[in-house]
């Protein structure tokens, strides 16, 4: 391994790296203070060639591209206009082919096992009978859907689209932080980031040999088509969105456009004799596969929340009758319950007789009095998460919290230990980001997207999310995070 040192003359005046923070946390770009990892050498050189003004211009060009394309998301509870641009960081995150290969194998293994697990707990429940996973844990999960018992779905695939959150630990190993098995979002930002990157750094991109992401729309379409009921040929596939006020609406339109399928809302669909139709200008047209971006709770007011106006009355019965496929299936949330997460390594061993390739983060289950005691005594050092939440909501980060907030969480935990888990505060790896004219280190994670239909398809890359606030560990867009393009190299 060779490393290139930063030329001294640059450091003297205003190296963009003047304020760069390096310490025990793993850095995506630098191996040591003057050594970048091999895959970052060319980027490093390019950054030193560009003046701060040039870098600033490129950042502005990128921001403008996002604004004009309307690549925005909606923030709940923001007072002024609800649309915001998704902050984009100029500098790519680069993964070597070897790093990616491990991630890929680990994800295939994990998704295969989780899918077998879902099939099992909604059928015979062997894993519960063998006491590998406690059955109380499953049956007490808010996301376990009794309505799914003994329902057979195409290929037995429950989790058609997954966006697994990976983080890199101080030793450089990737670990799984969360399995998002319900309606994970962000794939469109991954694709939009790539598009903008190609316009902003065309030569650097071409020289690097980056594996392409172009095929995502087609891969998703093929995956969904393979899920058609009775292997129906040429199925009608639609994307079901909650509508224009949803925070991910941009993504819904983006994916529908890239697949060339209609984007529908609940009010566009009707059911009759357990068949789902959409209202078109030429009358009613039968629908075969629904890529739904609405949570279980809201999808059918007759079966789940009766106050939902987003869903389609009668949809679940049509689904149970096998006339229409929902992707993802109903009830997948039970397997990304944060307490069930703790058992995923055991789940992998149980179904596949393999050791997990991607490790878990150590997790304390608070229903166990011993673990709970430990957690309550160390709240200032741990991260506490609500088991059924996602998007960075309902979370306590001990080291960054106040006594008052910790006290609130202590009460919540004592009142309802099943609803929370705790984990050690993980120092996510840091990557270089272009902030106010300088390159600074910020914490990042990685969310690759896994498609599972007739087979598993993973596109080389993912969404690298960035905690743009200095020192912050929260990367969610709803909490002020941004993102950057992720390059997986050919070799």
């Amino acid at each position, binding site marked *: 391994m060779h490393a290139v040192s930063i030329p001294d003359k640059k450091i003297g005046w205003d190296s963009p790296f003047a304020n760069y923070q390096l310490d025990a946390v793993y850095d995506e770009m630098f191996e040591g203070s003057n050594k970048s990892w091999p895959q970052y050498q060319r980027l490093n050189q390019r950054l030193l060639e560009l003046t701060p003004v040039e870098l600033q211009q490129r950042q502005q060009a990128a921001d403008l591209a996002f604004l004009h394309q309307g690549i925005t998301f909606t923030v709940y509870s923001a007072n002024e206009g609800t649309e915001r641009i998704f902050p984009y960081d100029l500098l790519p995150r680069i993964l070597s082919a070897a790093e990616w290969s491990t991630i890929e194998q680990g994800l295939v293994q994990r998704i295969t096992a989780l899918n077998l697990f879902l099939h099992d707990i909604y059928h015979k429940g062997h894993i519960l009978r063998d006491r590998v996973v406690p059955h109380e844990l499953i049956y007490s999960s808010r996301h376990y859907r009794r309505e799914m018992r003994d329902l057979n779905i195409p290929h037995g695939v429950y989790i058609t689209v997954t966006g697994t959150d990976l983080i890199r630990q101080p030793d450089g190993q990737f670990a799984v932080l969360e399995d998002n098995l319900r309606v994970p979002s962000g794939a469109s930002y991954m694709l939009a980031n790539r598009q903008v990157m190609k316009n902003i750094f065309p030569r650097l991109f071409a020289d690097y040999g980056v594996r392409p992401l172009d095929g995502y729309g087609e891969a998703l379409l093929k995956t969904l088509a393979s899920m058609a009921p009775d292997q129906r040929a040429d199925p009608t596939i639609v994307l079901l969105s909650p509508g224009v006020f949803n925070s991910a609406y941009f993504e819904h339109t983006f994916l*529908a456009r890239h697949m060339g399928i209609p984007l529908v809302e609940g009010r566009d669909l009707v059911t009759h004799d357990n068949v789902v139709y959409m*209202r*078109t200008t030429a009358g009613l047209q039968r629908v075969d596969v629904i890529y739904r971006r609405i949570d279980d709770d809201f999808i059918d007011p007759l079966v789940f929340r009766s106050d939902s106006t987003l869903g389609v009355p009668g949809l679940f019965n049509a689904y149970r009758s096998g006339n229409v496929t929902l992707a993802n299936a109903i009830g997948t949330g039970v397997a990304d319950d944060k307490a069930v997460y703790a058992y995923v390594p055991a789940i992998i061993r149980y179904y596949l007789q393999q050791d997990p390739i991607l490790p878990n983060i150590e997790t304390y289950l608070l229903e166990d009095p011993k673990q709970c005691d430990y957690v309550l005594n160390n709240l200032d050092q741990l991260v506490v998460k609500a088991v059924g939440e996602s998007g960075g909501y309902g979370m306590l980060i001990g080291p960054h919290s106040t006594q008052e907030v910790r006290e609130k969480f202590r009460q919540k935990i004592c009142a309802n230990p099943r609803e929370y888990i705790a984990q050690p505060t993980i120092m996510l790896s840091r990557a270089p980001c272009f902030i106010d004219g300088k390159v600074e280190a910020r914490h990042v994670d990685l969310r690759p997207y896994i498609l599972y239909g007739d087979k598993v398809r993973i596109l080389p890359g993912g969404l690298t999310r960035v905690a743009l606030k200095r020192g912050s560990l929260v990367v969610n867009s709803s909490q002020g995070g941004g993102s950057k393009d992720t390059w997986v190299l050919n070799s």
Partner: protein
Amino acid sequence: MLSRVADSLYWMSRYLERAEHTARLIDVHLNHILEQPSAAGLRRHQVLASLYVPADSDVIDSDYALAELLTFQRSNSNTMAACIATARENARQVREQISTEMWEQLNQLFLFINNTKMDQIWADQPHEFYHAVKQGSHLFQGITDSTMNHGQGWHFIQLGRFIERAMATARLLNVEFQALGQEEQDAAATNRNHFNLLVLLKSCTAFEAYSKVYTASLQPRHVTEFLLLDREFPHSICFAVIMIQNALNALAGATESNKTARVYRLAGRLFATFDYGQIDEIMQEGLEVYLANVQKQCMQIHNAIDKQFISYPIEEKLAA
């Protein structure tokens, strides 16, 4: 095509046409009042009446107040800015149906207006601002024609634009002709009529086109005939009616619907009144009545489109 999508495309197009029409009326007004300052009060009243904006002429006592009311004011839900925001909101709901180029153009037009303040427009060149809005709308139409499939969605866009245009032009003609002095002539009245006719033609971008047909001699009868019955001029009502008829014919084919349905019969009837209409007869029977009837028929077509394509009862289609 999804009914909701057709609906959004239709309204997107209508609102954009409305915004363009409003921008043109303001622009023409500001321009022509420079030479006829004494007519300003009356002209302001005419502009407001033709846009159905109820306003107290004591309150709207300056051109600034007029422009502000029609461009930005929040109490008026049909301001130019509101129309463009609504057009964009409709486009946003069908993002995946329109081309990226269309969306970017409409979004940029929206951002341009949103980032502009009335005082700033007034301090610079108001004409340039309103011109930029009209141009933005024209650009959007050009981009639409050259980047979007000329399929169902495009036909709904055509329908929205031309129904809006037919109704707005009919209203404008009606308001302006009521104000024209009768044939008795002193020099001042002739002068005033000439001025009003000129404003009317320019408000429909019709002055140059009219002059090519009738020369620059402005006769009320010729102006009416041109704006009502000309088959080739895109802002005449007849042209709009032909386009409505064409769009509905195309939609009948694309949706394989029964040609005897109400919407097609209504459009055919309206087309026939223009196809066989004679300007002398129309003037004799009263232009006001005729124009009111045109507006009523456009409204009926609008409702029938909704019934045929958008909010039909499900039972009707299940039986078919």
